[in-house]
C-alpha cells in the first residue's frame, strides 16, 4: 500500500513537471497556431539561468525566483526578434525556423557555459526526506516539485477560467480571427502568451535541473514527450494538457514500477526483464495512438 502511494506520487511529480512544459507549448500551438520546436530550448535556458543565478546569489530559492523574470525577458526577446515573423508563415517554415533556434541555443550554451554540463546542488532543507504519512518517507525535493507544480497549475487554471486575459486566451484558442476582428490587440496577446510559456518552460527546467542535471540539448529529449502530451490532451487546451500530463506521468511510472512483475506472471523471468523496459518505453506512444483513434483531435481538442 505504501509502495503504491509512493509510486503514484512519483507519477504525479513527473506529470506536473511535464505539464509545466506542455502548458506553454499547447498555448502557443493552440492560440498562436505556432509550432515551436524551440520550446525545449527555453526549458534548457531556464536550467542554465538557474545554475548561474543560484551561483551568484548563493541561495537556491532566490536564484530560482530570479530565473523566472529572466526567462520572461528571454521569451519576449525571442518572440520579438524571431517568432513574430513566423505567424503568417505555414507550419513547415515555423518548424525550420524554430529548429534553427534549437541549434542556436545549443551552440550559445556551449559558448557561454561550456560543453561539460552543470549540476545544481540542493540546499540542506530540500536534500533529505519528509514523512508524508507516518512511516512513509518521500524525498523532500520531489515533494517540493509537487507542491510548486500543483500551485502553479491551480494559478494557471484560475487565470484561464476566471480572468479577462484568460478569457481572451480561450477565445484565441477557439477562434483567432474573431477576437482580432473584435478589436483585441493580437500582437500583445501573442507576446504575453509566448512569454508565459517561456516562464513555465523555464520553471520546469529549473525544477528538473537538480534531478536530471543541466546539459546541452536537455530540452530536446523531453520536447517529444511534451508534444505527445499536447496531442493527447488536445491542442490549445490547458485542461487537456494537465490531464494528459498526469496520465503520461502515471503510465511512465507504471511501466517502470509494475510492468516487469506483471509480465513475469505469464513470461519467463529472463523474457520479462528484457521485454519490460522495451514495452514501457513505447507504452506512452501506444496510449497516444489509442486516443487519436478514439478522438482524432485529442481529449479536449477543438471539435470540428
Amino acid at each position: 500500500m505504501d509502495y503504491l502511494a509512493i509510486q503514484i506520487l512519483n507519477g504525479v511529480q513527473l506529470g506536473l513537471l511535464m505539464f509545466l512544459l506542455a502548458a506553454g507549448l499547447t498555448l502557443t500551438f493552440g492560440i498562436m497556431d505556432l509550432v515551436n520546436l524551440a520550446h525545449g530550448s527555453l526549458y534548457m535556458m531556464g536550467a542554465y539561468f538557474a545554475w548561474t543565478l543560484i551561483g551568484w546569489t548563493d541561495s537556491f530559492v532566490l536564484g530560482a525566483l530570479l530565473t523566472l523574470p529572466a526567462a520572461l525577458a528571454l521569451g519576449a526577446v525571442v518572440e520579438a526578434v524571431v517568432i513574430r515573423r513566423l505567424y503568417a508563415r505555414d507550419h513547415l517554415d515555423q518548424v525550420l525556423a524554430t529548429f534553427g533556434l534549437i541549434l542556436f541555443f545549443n551552440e550559445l550554451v556551449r559558448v557561454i557555459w561550456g560543453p561539460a554540463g552543470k549540476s545544481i546542488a540542493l540546499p540542506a532543507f530540500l536534500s533529505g526526506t519528509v514523512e508524508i504519512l507516518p512511516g512513509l518517507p518521500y524525498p523532500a525535493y520531489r515533494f517540493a516539485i509537487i507542491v510548486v507544480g500543483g500551485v502553479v497549475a491551480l494559478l494557471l487554471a484560475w487565470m484561464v477560467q476566471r480572468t479577462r486575459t484568460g478569457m481572451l486566451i480561450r477565445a484565441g484558442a477557439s477562434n483567432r480571427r474573431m477576437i482580432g476582428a473584435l478589436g483585441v490587440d493580437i500582437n500583445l496577446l501573442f507576446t504575453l502568451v509566448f512569454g508565459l510559456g517561456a516562464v513555465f518552460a523555464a520553471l520546469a527546467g529549473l525544477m528538473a535541473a537538480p534531478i536530471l542535471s543541466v546539459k546541452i540539448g536537455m530540452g530536446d529529449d523531453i520536447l517529444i514527450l511534451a508534444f505527445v502530451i499536447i496531442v493527447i490532451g488536445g491542442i490549445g487546451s490547458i485542461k487537456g494538457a494537465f490531464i494528459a500530463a498526469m496520465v503520461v506521468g502515471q503510465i511512465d511510472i507504471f511501466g517502470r514500477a509494475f510492468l516487469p512483475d506483471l509480465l513475469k506472471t505469464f513470461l519467463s523471468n529472463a523474457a520479462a526483464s528484457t521485454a519490460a523496459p522495451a514495452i514501457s518505453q513505447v507504452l506512452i506512444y501506444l496510449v497516444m495512438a489509442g486516443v487519436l483513434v478514439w478522438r482524432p483531435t485529442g481529449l479536449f481538442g477543438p471539435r470540428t
Partner: protein
Amino acid sequence: MKYGILGAVTIAAMAFGASGALAQSTIKIGFISTFSGPQAAIGQDMRRSAELAVEHLGGMAGGKKIELIFEDDQFKPDVGKQKSEKLVQQDKVNFVTGYIWSNVLLASLKAVTDEADTILISANAGPSQIAGELCHKNFFSTSWNNDQTPMAMGQYLQDRGVKSLYLMAGNYAAGKDMLAGVRRTFKGQVAGEDLTKWPDQLDFSAELAKIRAAKPEGVFVFYPGAHGVQFVRQFVQAGLKDQIKLYQVFSIDAITLPQQGELALGSLGAQQWVNDLPNDANKRYVADFRKKHNDYPSYYGAQAYDSIMLIASAAEALKGDLANKDRVRAELKKANFKSVRGGFSFNTNNFPIQNFYIQEAVKDADGKMTVKTIATAISKAKDPHFEKCPMK
C-alpha cells in the same frame, strides 16, 4: 547533385590520402572519446592521460614523432562510427584508440578493423561479443571485458556472505553485460532487477521506490559518469543510504566524486586499476597527473595512458616501421610495456589477463574525495568469453 560533390570529395581525399601514406614520418593515433555534453569529463580525463603518456615518452616512439588526433563521438553510436571512418579513411591513422561506450565501439568496430584493416585498441569499452565470437586480430583492449569488473564485485560480496542484492543498470550493451557479470559470481538472492532507459533516463524515482519495498541487503549499480552522479544523489535523497549498502562498478570514481562528494563516502566498488596501486609506472603517472591538473586521474585515464604506452612499445620494437601489420600485431600481443595496473598480459582474444581490486570511496589527507584499494577480489582474471573466440 549532393552525391556528385560527395563523390568528387571522396576521390580527391583518396588521391591525396594515398600519396600522404607513402611519406608518413609520424605515428598517427586516432583517439575517439566523448568531449562534449554531460559525459565530457570522462573524455577530458582520457585526453589528459593520453597526452601525459606522449609527454612521458618524449613525444617519440621508435624514432618517430607521435601524433594524436582527437575526435568527439558526442556520446552517440552513429557519430562515433562516422568519426572512426574519418580517422581511418581521411587521416590514415596507424591506430585508433579510446572508446568509452560499448554501443559506440560496436557501431564503429567493422569500419576500423575490417574495412580499413586498422588496429583498434579499446581504452575502455569491452562488450562481451568482442571478447567472444566477434573477436578480431585487429582488436586489442587495455581495459577489460564488461563482465569482469562486476564479476569481481559479485565475488567479493559472495565471499562476504551478502544475502540479497538489487541490480540496476542502463539498458544498453554494457549494462546488460554488467548485470550478467555480477550474476556469474554472486549466488545469493537477486531481490530485483531494473534496466533503465539509456541514456535519457536520469530520474530513478520509480526504481528507488521498488528498492525500498524489496528491502535488499545491498544495491548493485552500473551508472557511468553523469548518470552515476544522479543515481547516488537520488539514492541518498530518498533516505536509502542508511538502510541499504551501495555497491557499484564505474559509478563512483575520480570523474563523479567531485560532484558526489560525501554522499558517496564508504561505498564499495571493483576496478582493475586504482590510483594507489604501488608500482613505479603508476606512481609516476598519478603524481604527474595530479601535479598538472590538481585532480586524481580515473581508470578511464589510466587505460588511455596504457593504450598509448602499448602502441609505443610495439613501435619501439619495430623501430618505427609499422608497414607490416602482422609484425605490429605480434609486437602488441607481447604487451611488452609497464602497465600502470601492474601485471598485464594478453589472453587469446586480445583482452588483458589482470587482477581486480575492491576500492572504497574515502577522503584523502587534504579532505578531497578519492578511492583507495581495500582488497584484491580476483587475481589473474580471464574474461568468461575467451573460449568462444576462434583466435588461438
